């Protein structure tokens, strides 16, 4: 880009403003990335506390701590906050920090809009959380908010929930437009699409998914709003509407949404494993094609969440076959990662530990997904803890572990300091044990017949629920250690080199550590055609 002609990024150009207004008014991609990441971490803790309320109540049979009404509010808010408040903003934060640095761009293409996308979020979540204090309580109909429980039978706060979802949607759509425009227009001269690091590729595809499905989510909540306040009957059988329509529209958003939460994770892991195996990523091209096929397939499998709503057999069979197909590109990815490790020269620093745990535990989640795709068996699994185990395996040691891996991997670049490796490894092992103790038994609780979203349960489920709760507290409290490690790293530590990791490749490692406030004001010359 010709607008910027300085030779040095730091000679006369301004650095960050001072004080609070720096953060409110900032249009700098690094500042905005930081805001997103801190926001996401706060939401992670808030959502985590709700999870602990749930697990504490389920520690023993009987109602000890909360009443069922409040329990339902906790499961609902936990899901909404983790999905929309923790995982998605964390990936957007990483995209902000990394995409411009990885493609050699000076900033995001639309910096002012970038600022808006972030600052909408605190209002959206402030509104969502405020419903907890409203008369009638917070939304209590599950993060999937099936009508008519979420319309005719909803607490009055549902209107605030709808408005909050609209705000989140606007924020996501603006964020994705920004990512797409940046990637398509601001790549360093000579960087072809097939030269881009996989994190950039996966985010490009994720951004398209977001633009395609967030409006569908907005549509479905608007239909709810109409039903609740303006006398329509989209989802009201009594008025000639169709409650199942709700589920179709919701899952048409919802299934791509789950891939929105995992594709960037694929990109992160594809950056980390080659670094610590000191070997090029295996099958770059097939990684890109696999990501694209997963994204495409994600639009045509939504009703696998609805096998028990009474679809005709042809519908069940179609959605079963289509869902099973997703296992193929997913398998390709896993095999590629394993092949990348194979005959490498591996070391196991914290980011690598999280990345390897990701591959193993995500695969377990993928395999249970395959089991869930088998319709006759899904009749038994559906809406039990088996499903809870499945999606937590892909989301916690999946998405969340990848985010933590990313944080450890790039923290030295962001702060200029190395994090404390011993503490990092401790954090990893506590999290790893915690996650598995929490979620592995849930497979069995589910198979044995415990439905999800139950505040209390029959006695034969008692033992494994207790184990699961213990694991949840272990995992939850370990995250405070993560907070400590990050703060410690920001405040000091061993000075990081520019390259940070000896096997790391990519443009972000060519700038100094910490990355200066403005990078690539002049487009970099690409070293050679081998960034990926």
């Amino acid at each position: 880009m010709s607008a910027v002609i300085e030779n040095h990024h730091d000679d006369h150009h301004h650095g960050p403003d001072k004080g609070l207004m720096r953060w409110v008014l900032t249009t700098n991609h690094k500042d905005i990335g930081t805001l997103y990441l801190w926001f996401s971490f706060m939401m992670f803790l808030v959502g985590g506390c709700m999870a602990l309320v749930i697990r504490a109540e389920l520690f023993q049979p009987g109602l000890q701590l909360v009443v069922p009404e409040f329990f339902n509010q906790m499961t609902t808010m936990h899901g909404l906050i983790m999905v929309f408040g923790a995982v998605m903003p964390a990936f957007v934060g990483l995209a902000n920090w990394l995409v411009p640095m990885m493609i050699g761009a000076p900033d995001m293409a639309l910096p002012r809009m970038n600022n808006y996308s972030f600052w909408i979020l605190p209002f959206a979540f402030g509104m969502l959380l405020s419903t907890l204090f409203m008369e009638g309580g917070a939304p209590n109909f599950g993060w999937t908010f099936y009508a008519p429980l979420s319309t005719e039978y909803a607490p009055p706060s549902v209107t605030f929930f709808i408005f909050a979802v609209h705000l989140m949607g606007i924020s996501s759509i603006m964020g994705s437009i920004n990512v797409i425009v940046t990637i398509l227009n601001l790549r360093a001269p000579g960087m072809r699409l097939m030269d881009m690091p996989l994190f950039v590729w996966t985010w490009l595809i994720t951004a398209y998914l977001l633009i395609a499905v967030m409006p569908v989510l907005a549509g479905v909540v608007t239909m709810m709003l109409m039903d609740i306040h303006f006398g329509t009957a989209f989802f009201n059988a009594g008025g000639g509407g169709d409650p199942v329509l709700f589920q179709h529209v919701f899952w048409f958003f919802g299934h791509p949404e789950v891939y929105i939460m995992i594709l960037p994770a694929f990109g992160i892991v594809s950056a980390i494993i080659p670094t610590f195996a000191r070997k090029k990523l295996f099958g770059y091209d097939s990684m890109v094609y696999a990501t694209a096929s997963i994204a495409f397939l994600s639009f045509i499998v939504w009703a696998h969440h609805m096998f028990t709503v009474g679809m005709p057999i042809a519908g069940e069979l179609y959605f079963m076959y289509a869902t099973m197909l997703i296992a193929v590109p997913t398998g390709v990815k896993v095999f590629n990662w394993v092949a990348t490790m194979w005959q490498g020269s591996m070391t196991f620093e914290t980011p690598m530990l999280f990345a390897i745990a990701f591959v193993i535990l995500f695969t377990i989640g993928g395999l249970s997904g395959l089991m869930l795709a088998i319709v006759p068996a899904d009749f038994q699994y559906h809406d039990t803890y088996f499903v809870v185990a499945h999606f937590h395996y892909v989301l916690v040691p999946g998405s969340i572990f990848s985010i933590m891996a990313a944080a450890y991997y790039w923290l030295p670049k962001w702060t200029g300091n190395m994090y404390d490796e011993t503490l990092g490894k401790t954090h990893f092992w506590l999290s790893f044990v915690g996650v598995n103790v929490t979620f592995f038994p849930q497979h069995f609780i589910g198979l044995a017949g415990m439905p999800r979203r139950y505040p209390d349960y029959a006695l034969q489920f008692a033992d494994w629920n207790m184990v699961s709760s213990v694991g949840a507290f272990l995992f939850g409290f370990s995250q405070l250690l993560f907070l400590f490690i990050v703060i410690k790293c920001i405040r000091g530590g061993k000075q990081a080199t520019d390259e940070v990791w000896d096997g790391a490749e990519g443009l972000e490692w060519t700038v100094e550590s910490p990355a200066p406030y403005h990078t690539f004001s002049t487009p970099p010359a690409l070293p050679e055609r081998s960034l990926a």
Partner: protein
Amino acid sequence: MVKGAMPKPMDQDRVNHRLELLDMTKTQSSLGAVSRVKRVVKLLTALAASVVSTHALADWSALNMTKGVTEISRQVYDLHMLIFTICVVIGVVVFGIMIWSMLVHRKSLGAEPASFSHSTKLEYAWTIIPIFILIGMAVPATSTLRDMYDASEADIDIEVRGYQWKWQYRYLNDDPTQEVKFMSALLTPPDEYYNRTPKREHYLADVDNPLVIPINKKVRFLVTSNDVIHSWWVPDFAVKKDAIPGFVHEAWAKVEEPGIYRGKCTELCGKDHGFMPIVVKAVEQEEYEAWLAMKQQEALEVYETVGKTWTMAELMETGEKVYAQHCQTCHQANGEGIPPAFPSLVGQGLAIGPIDPHIDIVVNGKAGSAMQAFAAQLNPAEIAAVVTYERNAWGNDVGDLVQPREVNALVSGEE
């Protein structure tokens, strides 16, 4: 064990081992948290031991999907085990290779990185081989699904209707006077789930009126709902169907062994989603017929009671029972409700006002609230009794009463 069916004969060693485990899984309500923790530790060690022992799989049955008691449920179980085994094998191979690599290809052992970064042959192989594995899974899955959708003529039709938070069963019959219909609700009293009294066997898994069906007959369940979406799940039949207002969906079961089979609601349906279990009693044909005849007789009697004139004492006595069964979850035993969602009935509102609006709200419910129309679930005598009860309990002492025949006039006049 959920059901009363006997385990299949197996060698004594296995039986003993299994019983031991079951014994540990069985919870005695009197156990406190501490002793339960100890038991969990014991259980974990026992399980760890059984994993290494040769007949590990048999011992997992308490943690696995039930085989159930229908041809279909066994097919589903076999399918589940097949897919599960394939997944475990894939997992073992992939993780095995990873772990091997992690142990051997370490920098600390002096491993030098290789330089390959793709292999067309390998990539084709691991795209195409999985497709064949998937086809291998899809074939049995498809045939089981077709069997589940076998819609041939059933011997008995039962409508299953979900309510917030109980089930209604209706034995469809061409002759409307022969039609048996009743509600089935949780039997566990609040004292048990609020930990005031010990939890007994079948905690949260028992109902007042179980559904009764004959064995070896094809029963068709017509599943629907009166309010929000519920889902009717009986694992032993491999039947799970969403109960959706405005839709009637079919499911079938041909039960082979007499016994008591327990299930649950599996679609979030509001506050008491966890408190509306399902119990199905499968009995021999003769027993079924006797039971049905008795039910039909009862229905007739209820019909007749509507004609007689009730005393205040009779109404209060029946009213108290009806209240405990149908109203108390929301309005609470002391009538004070949980405002604002569930208003108090004590000393205020309709319960002490004129009687007609009071009857009306019980009969027709209140749109947009959790207060449902009870006309479909309660007979006129029960409605008259509960209204009378509410007007005269908890110090309301309004003093008036309503006769079943008046309610009946109101209900049937409307229809």
